[in-house]
């Protein structure tokens, strides 16, 4: 016998299912007006005062057959334009950093309107290239999938996460392509050719 470890185990995940929007995005589910204030409808507290460049990222979540999923729900979390996370000292008071958005039920396309994040220094002073963290859930996804959006017009060469990807062509799966001024395209592929790099962090 050994001493007992006084540590708990995380609660196991279950799929968010086909009706996740009822719980997290009631207006999208057709139940508008349920709450006085819905959570995560925009990452802005006051878009007109937010610091930095406002950008729009458009994309789809594709399943292993190449079908753009109509029921994917995504959450984003990011720092502000100066690389400061909401809640930290000096953070942009007009920016909340968190957003919920869903694939369109007709087209399967999502849009995230937000500020372009800055770079920041993490533990040990290591600098990360600007990125937005994503968490993808849907029917058939048994545990939420974490990934990141980087930007093709930023300096990504020294990013500690991108540099851990052995197969260099796969780095591109995490990099949003600039389509116009302030506009980017970022597709997520759950499986198969061009499969997005998902994270265990």
């Amino acid at each position, binding site marked *: 016998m050994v001493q007992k470890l006084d540590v708990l185990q*995380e*609660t196991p995940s279950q799929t*968010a*299912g086909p009706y996740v929007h009822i719980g997290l995005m*009631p207006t999208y589910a057709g139940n508008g007006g349920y709450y006085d204030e819905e959570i995560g409808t925009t990452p802005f507290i006051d878009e007109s005062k937010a610091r930095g460049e406002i950008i729009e990222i458009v994309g789809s979540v594709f399943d292993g057959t190449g079908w753009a999923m109509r029921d994917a729900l995504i959450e984003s979390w990011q720092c502000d334009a100066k690389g400061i996370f909401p809640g930290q000292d000096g953070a942009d008071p007009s920016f909340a950093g968190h957003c919920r958005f869903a694939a369109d039920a007709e087209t399967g396309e999502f849009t995230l309107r937000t500020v372009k994040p800055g770079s920041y220094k993490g533990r040990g002073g290591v600098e990360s290239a600007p*990125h937005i963290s994503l*968490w993808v859930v849907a029917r058939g996804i048994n545990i939420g999938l974490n990934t990141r959006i980087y930007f093709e017009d930023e300096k990504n060469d020294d990013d500690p*996460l991108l540099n851990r990807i052995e197969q260099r062509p796969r780095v591109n799966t995490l990099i949003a392509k600039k389509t116009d001024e302030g506009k980017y395209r970022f597709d997520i592929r759950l499986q198969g050719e061009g499969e997005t790099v998902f994270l265990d*962090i």
Partner: protein
Amino acid sequence: MTDLGPLIPRNRAIHPDPYDPGYKTSVARSPNLPLLSMESTPSEETGPAFGHGTLGALDNNLILNWTKGAAPAVGERILMHGRVLDEMGRPVPNTLVEIWQANAGGRYRHKKDTYFAPLDPNFGGCGRTITDENGYYEFLTVRPGAYPWPNRANDWRPMHIHISVYGHSFGQRLITQMYFEGDPLIAHCPIAATIKDRSQLDRLVAPLDFSKSRPLDFLAYKFDIVLRGRRQTMFENKLEGM
């Protein structure tokens, strides 16, 4: 700012397999390639905060919140309650807990749900609350019905409530489902069966809790939730090389 240390790496063995042919939809929606593992960074260690000011008084009362208190929902009245803790056993206070569920007949208020069981005009099916300083939360709701779903030819979901929790770090984000003690359908459900270790599945089954039941009003079910913790040691705060 004090460094609380990185998140404790996720023990994926307790979680469902992403690819599980018994749950057909997972077949084309699960990554083939291994996940990229890395120690957590500020992107995963920070997270959104939600204030009590965002919430309405009836947000955690699903019996009344759809009608704004005008008329109660049909069904077996229950209190769902418990604590949100982290892996170190510490309570997680002031964190958002959201739930959604079918009505007492097993029907969701969603345009994609066409099951025979009728909608209850007095039931919307979602609620939310923020844990108190001890990590405690509660919801008043009705027990959801079981319902059939398109998977294999005759699959039924056991009674369940979906739960979404944030914690204080984006890397703690978790969605799961609560099942009910004694439900014979749990053993037949392909979604429950995505968790391969039965002792882990048992952790999603809420026991009947008479200590919180209110006589002549509602039964109670207790459901504690554990989120990932942080690996702080006395070495974490020392300068590199010390």
